C-alpha cells in the first residue's frame, strides 16, 4: 500500500470516527410541534448572567441544539442533552439583552432525526440584581426532620455551598432566614431544638439571641428586616400539625396562636403592641414596606377546636404604621386585602423593593399554603389597590413562598408543580407594565438527573446580593455553647395621644 492510500485511509477513518462522535442531523423529519424538553424552558424570560438553561428531550437518543440571537456567536451543542458551555452562554445572552434567542432542536429517535418547531428564550432588558439565592433544603416530611441546611447558590453557574448544615449543630432545625434587602451583611435565621437560638449577624459581628420572654408567646420565628437595618419584624408562633386521611391531602400546618414583635438590633429590645398581640386573633408573617413606615402582616380569628374548625382559619392581609425614629407601632390596623370575604386565606405578603407591588399567596384556608394544591400567587398593585392572580406563573399544584430581587423585576418562588410533593424553585420576571413572564426552573448542570435524585424540598428562597459569609465552624461552636443574648421587652405603640 503506498503512502497516498495510507493517508487517504487514515483521513477517512478520522472522518468516520468524528462523524460517529458528533452524529449531526441528516435529513431530519420536520415536526410541527415543540420538542418535549425537560425542564420546560420554551418561551421563558431570563436575565443576563443566569446559568445555562441546560435541558434534555424526553425519549431522545441524541439531540442537536442551536441557539441563535440577533448578535453574538450562536451556540451549538450535540449530545445526550443540551449542555451549554457556561462562558459562551453568558456571552450570547449578554449580546442579546432585551432580545430573544431562537432555539432549534433536532432529536434522534430510533435512529431517525427529527427537526422540531423552534422556540424562543427571551432575554430580559431588566438586570437581575443578585449574586444568587439562599434557601433551606429539607425533606418534605411531617413532624421529624433529618438532614437539612441553609444553602446558597450562585445564579451565574451551578455552584452551591452550605451556609450552615444541621449536622454541625447536632441536628437542630434551622430556617426562617432573611437578609436585609437581599444584602447578607445583615442576616438573620432561627434554630429550633435543643440548642435553639436566633442568629443576627451584622457588620458588628454575630449575636445569638434567646428571644423567648415572659411577655411573649414564644421564640421569634418569621423574620423581616426593616429597610434601615436597625429593626427586624418577627412573628412568634405556636405551630402544630394535623394530618388528613385522603390521598390528595397530607398535612395541615396551623398556628394555635401567633403574635408580632419588632426586635431592635441596637438595644436588644422586643417592641410590643397590643394591636398585634390580640388574644382572639392571630398575627403572622410581618414584612416592612420598602419605606419602612408600614408593616404588612396577616391576621386571622383564633379557633379553639382545630380538629373541626381547621378549615375556617382564614387570613386577611393588613397593615399598621411603624415609626422607626421612635421605635413605635401605629395606633390602628387597616385591612389591605380581605381574603375572608372571598372565603380564602391570604398569607406571605411580600412587597417589591420599589414599593409598587405586594405579592402574596392565596389558598382556601390556613397559613401554610405549600401543603395546599390550590394555593397560588397573587399580585396587588399598591398604587391602585387592585389584586389579581398571577396566572402566568401559577400551576395546578401548590405555588407558594416567594421573594423579590432588589431591582423588583424578578421574583423567586417555590412550587410543587413537578410532582406534588417536592418543592422546587422557579424564577420569573415582571416588566414595567406588570406582565409576568413564564417561570423557569432553577437551572442545573444536568437537570433531569439532579431533580430526579433530589430527595429534598427547597424552602423560603430569597435573593442575595453577594455570598453569605458565615464562619460555620465558629457558628457551630457558638450554637452548641448555648450562650445567648437575652431580650428586654418594651411596649412601644403610639396611643394617638400625641
Amino acid at each position, binding site marked *: 500500500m503506498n503512502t497516498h492510500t495510507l493517508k487517504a485511509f487514515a483521513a477517512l477513518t478520522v472522518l468516520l470516527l468524528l462523524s460517529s462522535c458528533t452524529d449531526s442531523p441528516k435529513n431530519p423529519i420536520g415536526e410541527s410541534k415543540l420538542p418535549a424538553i425537560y425542564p420546560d424552558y420554551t418561551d421563558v424570560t431570563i436575565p443576563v448572567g443566569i446559568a445555562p438553561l441546560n435541558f434534555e428531550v424526553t425519549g431522545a437518543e441524541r439531540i442537536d441544539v442551536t441557539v441563535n440571537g440577533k448578535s453574538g456567536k450562536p451556540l451549538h451543542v450535540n449530545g445526550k442533552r443540551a449542555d451549554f458551555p457556561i462562558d459562551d452562554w453568558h456571552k450570547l445572552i449578554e449580546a442579546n439583552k432585551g432580545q430573544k434567542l431562537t432555539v432549534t432542536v433536532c432529536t434522534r429517535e430510533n435512529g431517525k432525526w427529527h427537526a422540531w418547531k423552534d422556540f424562543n428564550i427571551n432575554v430580559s432588558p431588566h438586570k437581575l440584581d443578585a449574586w444568587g439565592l439562599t434557601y433551606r433544603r429539607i*425533606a418534605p*416530611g*411531617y*413532624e*421529624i*426532620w*433529618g*438532614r437539612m*441546611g441553609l444553602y446558597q447558590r450562585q445564579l451565574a453557574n451551578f455552584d452551591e455551598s*452550605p451556609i*450552615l*448544615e444541621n*449536622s*454541625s*449543630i*447536632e*441536628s437542630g432545625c434551622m430556617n426562617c432566614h432573611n437578609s436585609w434587602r437581599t444584602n447578607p451583611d445583615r442576616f438573620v435565621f432561627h434554630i429550633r431544638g435543643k440548642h435553639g437560638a436566633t442568629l443576627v449577624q451584622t457588620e458588628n459581628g454575630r449575636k445569638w439571641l434567646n428571644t423567648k420572654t415572659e411577655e411573649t408567646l414564644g421564640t421569634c420565628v418569621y423574620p423581616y428586616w426593616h429597610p434601615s437595618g436597625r429593626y427586624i419584624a418577627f412573628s412568634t408562633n405556636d405551630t402544630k400539625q*394535623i*394530618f*388528613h*386521611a*385522603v*390521598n*390528595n*391531602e*397530607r398535612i*395541615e400546618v396551623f398556628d394555635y396562636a401567633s403574635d408580632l414583635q419588632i426586635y431592635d438590633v441596637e438595644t436588644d429590645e422586643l417592641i410590643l403592641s397590643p394591636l398585634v398581640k390580640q388574644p382572639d386573633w392571630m398575627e403572622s408573617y410581618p414584612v416592612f414596606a420598602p419605606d419602612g413606615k408600614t408593616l404588612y402582616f396577616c391576621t386571622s380569628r383564633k379557633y379553639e377546636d382545630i*380538629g373541626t374548625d*381547621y378549615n375556617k382559619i382564614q387570613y386577611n392581609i393588613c397593615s399598621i404604621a411603624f415609626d422607626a425614629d421612635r421605635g413605635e407601632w401605629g395606633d390602628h390596623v387597616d385591612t389591605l386585602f380581605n381574603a375572608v370575604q372571598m372565603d380564602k386565606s391570604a398569607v406571605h405578603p411580600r412587597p417589591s423593593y420599589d414599593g409598587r407591588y405586594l405579592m402574596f399567596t392565596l389558598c382556601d384556608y390556613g397559613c401554610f399554603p405549600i401543603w395546599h394544591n390550590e394555593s397560588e400567587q397573587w399580585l396587588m398593585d399598591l398604587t391602585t389597590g387592585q389584586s389579581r392572580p398571577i396566572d402566568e406563573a401559577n400551576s395546578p399544584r401548590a405555588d407558594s413562598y416567594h421573594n423579590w430581587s432588589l431591582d423588583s423585576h424578578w421574583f423567586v418562588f417555590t412550587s410543587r408543580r*413537578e*410532582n*406534588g*410533593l*417536592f418543592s422546587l424553585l422557579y424564577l420569573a420576571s415582571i416588566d414595567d407594565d406588570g406582565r409576568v413572564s413564564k417561570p423557569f426552573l432553577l437551572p442545573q448542570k444536568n437537570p433531569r438527573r439532579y431533580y*430526579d*435524585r433530589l*430527595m429534598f424540598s427547597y424552602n423560603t428562597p430569597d435573593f442575595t446580593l453577594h455570598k453569605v459569609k458565615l464562619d*460555620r*465552624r465558629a457558628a*457551630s*461552636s457558638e450554637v*452548641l455553647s448555648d450562650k445567648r443574648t437575652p431580650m428586654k421587652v418594651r411596649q412601644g405603640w403610639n396611643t394617638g395621644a400625641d
Partner: protein
Amino acid sequence: MSRKTKPTVKQTPTVEVPWKAILSCAFAVAVFLFYVLKQTHLIIYQEWGQMFQFTSEYFIDRIAVPGGLARYLGEFFTQFYHTPWVGAVIIALLATAVHRLSWAIARRDGAGDAAFPISFVPALLLLAFMSYADTLLSYPIAMAAALLSCLLFRPTRKNALILLPYIAVFYHLFGTTAYIVALYEAAMLVAIGIREKKAASCCLLAAMLTAWTFAVVWISTFYTPYPLWRIFKGIPYHSVPTEIPSLQIHSMWITSAAIAAMALLPRWKMKPIITSAITVVLVAVGMKLTAEKYNTDLNYLISYDSLVYTEQWDKILNRKDIFDKVTTMSVACCDLALAIRGQLADNLFDYPQMGAEGLFLFMQRDNLSSNVIGEILFRIGMVNEAQRFFYDSQESLFNHNKSTRLTKRLTEIEIVNGQYDVARKYLHQLAKTLYYRGWANEQLLLLGNEDAINNHPLYGRLRSLRSKEDYIFQPNRLFYILESLYKQNPDNFLANQYMQAAIPLIKSKKRP
C-alpha cells in the same frame, strides 16, 4: 581401625498441627453461628437502615467526610445483609481478619506463640462494640484497614516519617481508627528506642506522630460540618452521634495496647496444647461476656420489629419471652400478629396487654415504634397515616440514611394514592440498589395503569380499604375511625379486629 558409626534410625516425620489456624477458624465459625442463630434481627435492622446506591453522587457524598471510604465500603457490604446468613459471614470474616491482622503485626514485631490468646482481644472488643445495634459495619472495616496499615509499616524511625502523610490520607479515608495506627507505632517506637538506647529520638518521633494525628483531625474540624467532639470521636462508625458508646474509643487504644503488649512480652516457651487451652478459655469467656452485652432493651425491641418486618407472625406469638419481658412495643407486635391470624378479638387477654396504648403505640415516637405503628395502619388501610409514620421513621435515622424498607413502603403508598410522579422518584432511587431494582422496575411498569393497580393484590386491596371520606387523624378518635373504615368496607377484617379489641382495652386498666 575404622570408626564405628551408629546405625541410623528411621525417624517418623513430625506433623506440625496448625493449631493457631484451627483456633482462628473455630473463632470465625463461632462468630458466624452466634450471628446467624441469635442476632439475625440486628442484621436485618442494619440492612433496612440504609439504601446503598451504585451512583457517583452516593460515592461523592460519602467520601466528602473523613471516614467516608469506610462508610461507603461498610454500606456496600451491609447491603448483602439482605440475606442474613451472608451478613453473618461478613461479620465473622471481618472479626477474624481483625484477630489475624493483630497476630500478624505482633508476630512480625517479636511476639511469641504464648501471646497468641491476646490476639483475640481486639476482635472481642469489636464484637462487644457491635452489640450496640447502631454500630455500623464501617467500624470493623476501618479497624481492619488500620491494622493492615500497622502491618504495612514496621515501627521504625524512617517509617514514622512516612506515616505522617500516610495518616493524613488514612484519616480522610477511614476516620479516627487512624488513632490505632498512631498509638501502636508510637508505643513500639518508644519501646524500640529504649531497647536500642535511642530513647530520645524515638520518643520525639512517637510524640510527633501522635500529635500529628490529632492535628490532622483538628484541622478537619475546619471543613467538616460536624461538632468538634463528634469529629474527634469518629463520624461514620455509629449511626446515633449523641449516643456513641465510649467503647468506640476504648477499643481503639486497647487494640493498640494489646498488639504492643503481644510484641513486647517475653517469648515464654509454652506447649501449643497449653496455649490452645488458654486461648479457648479466654475466647469462650470473652464471647460469653460479649454475648451478654447483646441483651439490651433496644436489641429486644429490634427483634420484635424485625419479625413484623419479615411477617413472621407465628414466631412472634410463640416467643418464649413474650410473658417475661413486656413492653408496649412487644404488645403491639403481638396484637398485630393476633389480628393477622384473626385471633385478636378472641384471644386478646391470652397475651399481655397494656391498654389502648399497647394496641397502637401512638404515645411512642422512636423510629422502631413508628415502623410498627406504620405497619399496623398500613394493613388496616389507613395509608395516609401510615405514610406519616414511615416518613418520620426514615427522617429520624440519625445518620440521615435513606432506608430500603421505608422507601419501599412509601412507594407502595404513593402508588395506592395515585401519586405516580412521587412514586417514580422513589422507584428511581430503589432501581439503583442491588436487591430492590427488580421490584422497582416492575412497579415502574405499573405506574399509570389503573386497571393493573386496581387488580393488584396489595394496591387494589388497600385502595378498597382506605377511607373515601376525609377526616383529621386524632388518636383519641381511633375507635370511630376504625368503625368508619369497617362500615365503608366490611372486608376490612383488620379494622374489625382492632375495633373489637379497642373496647375492652380502653375499659381495661390492667397492666401485666
